[in-house]
């Protein structure tokens, strides 16, 4: 049977879900599924942020696995750098196994909350603002 993770846009009343096979879905794939399901891949003006529904912590590590049947909150916020949103990066992306080797070795199945699991954020937040 397919697994699901439920997501709710932060401003929306009702929930939606992403279905997949397995015990969890990576943050990267979750973002990709949401972007594709909502036909948002062409817009380059926003970034998606996913948060745990209970702790409200952001899933900053794209390789982190969200366990099946959990609920997340999604926000669409302006791209950190104007016109440099990552929607198409996620939409066309090959999946979470490709980021830096550091991320793979450190993130291996351990649910670390952001900070250090990735050497570099994909949303550009750690880049100097111009």
């Amino acid at each position: 049977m397919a697994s699901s993770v439920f997501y709710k846009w932060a401003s929306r009343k009702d929930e939606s879900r992403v279905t997949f096979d397995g015990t969890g879905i990576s943050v990267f794939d979750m973002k990709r599924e949401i972007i594709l399901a909502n036909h948002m891949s062409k817009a380059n003006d926003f970034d998606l942020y996913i948060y745990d529904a209970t702790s409200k912590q952001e899933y900053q590590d794209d390789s982190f696995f969200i366990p099946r049947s959990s609920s997340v909150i999604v926000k669409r916020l302006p791209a950190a750098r104007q016109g440099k949103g990552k929607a198409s990066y996620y939409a066309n992306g090959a999946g979470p196994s490709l980021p830096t080797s550091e991320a793979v070795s450190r993130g291996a199945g351990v649910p670390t909350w952001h900070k250090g699991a990735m050497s570099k954020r994909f949303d550009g937040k750690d880049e100097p603002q111009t």
Partner: protein
Amino acid sequence: MADTPTLSVTMLGAGQEVGRSCCVLHYRGKTIVCDAGVHPAHSGMASLPFIDDLDWSTVDAILITHFHLDHAAALTYITEKTNFGDGKGKVYMTHPTKAVHKFMMQDYVRMSSSTSDALFSPLDMTKSLAAIIPVSVHQLITVCPGVSFTPYHAGHVLGACMFLIDIYGLKILYTGDYSREEDRHLVKAELPPVRPDVLIVESTFGTQTLEGREEKEQRFTNLVHSIVKRNGHCLLPTFALGRAQELLLILDEYWKKHPDLHNIPIYYASSLARKCMSVYQTYIHTMNANIRSRFAKRDNPFVFKHISNVPPQRGWEKKIAEGPPCVVLASPGFMDNGPSRELFELWASDSRNGLIVTGYSIEGTLAREITNEPEEFTSMKGNTIQRKISVEGISFSAHVDFSQNSEFIELVGAQHVVLVHGEQTAMGRLRAAMNSRYKERNEDVKIHTPRNLETLQLSFRGERVAKAIGA
């Protein structure tokens, strides 16, 4: 001076961009949202303002300035899909805006239901429309204790208004799109009789100077005339409502004066506009003296003598395109799909034909791209088409230009000016120009250009603060 209350201003859209206007004002526990538009260069979810960081149940009122989609089309999503309904928030717009908004949204829902990214259903739309409270210009409306507002004429399109908002004595003027030049049918924007503390003003044209009305109309009619005289077809992509009515008034009058043109048809391709003609006729009393006096003489200016509707059958675009010279007003104005796009592709490779872009073209749309006069472009089917058709831009978009905007900003005399609804560079230039004017005169006026979700915290000097606290 411990807890001086500050006003926070957050743009959810139209911050350093044109499109999806949505401005959130928060002061002493009250929240007012001005406009709720979509971004015309995007569709579905991506076209919405950045609404995810606001708890919509805390909003006291949503005020919509005019019926254009970039100011009003996200309203249904917000009232029906967010938790807005869990709160006590009310929605306001003027009577004519509400009347036209209904038709605009029916059309919008019909267009988007044919794609997979529809944001809401016809039922949502009906519910949202029913909840809108219509108001009159110059009427003082109390939203809740401590919050009231008054609409003033903004010109621009039928029903458009600015809002002078009062939150516990703090006054904010939000202009929406406005024009300071009387045109064929509308009054120009008024200067409200009270000096507000904050002015939130559009900056579409930045520091650009637009040609005067007569000059512009003459250039327009001459151009149309020369295109049809060289045996070409003249395409005027325009939105069905708003500026189209102005163009029709100009063309109808010009044709009347030029009998040699009577055998050349002007087609107006919009069933939406036909439905809205009754709204225009109902609200003639809100238009300018010229229109009102013609109407009083039983000369209804919106009954056009030289304008024909297109044959109501599928494939009319091709029929007209293959026929003799003519002028066609077709929607949408940005030519991203629909009749205007189809006609453009059919006529693009014949140099006798002419395209006149009459509106402001938003970044990311074909109407904008084509003003660079590319040698070729990609059709909707993906083929490459040679562009030989002549391309000209003449702005009838009814936004203020630099001299009108700067004059209005100075007349309003607010201590804080927030520029919105303009592209980054246009807005930056306007800010620089205004700053140097104020500096010359040694006046302390702050000009702000916030990006989306970059919240401004404004505090106020002088009696204003004392009064607000004591109130």
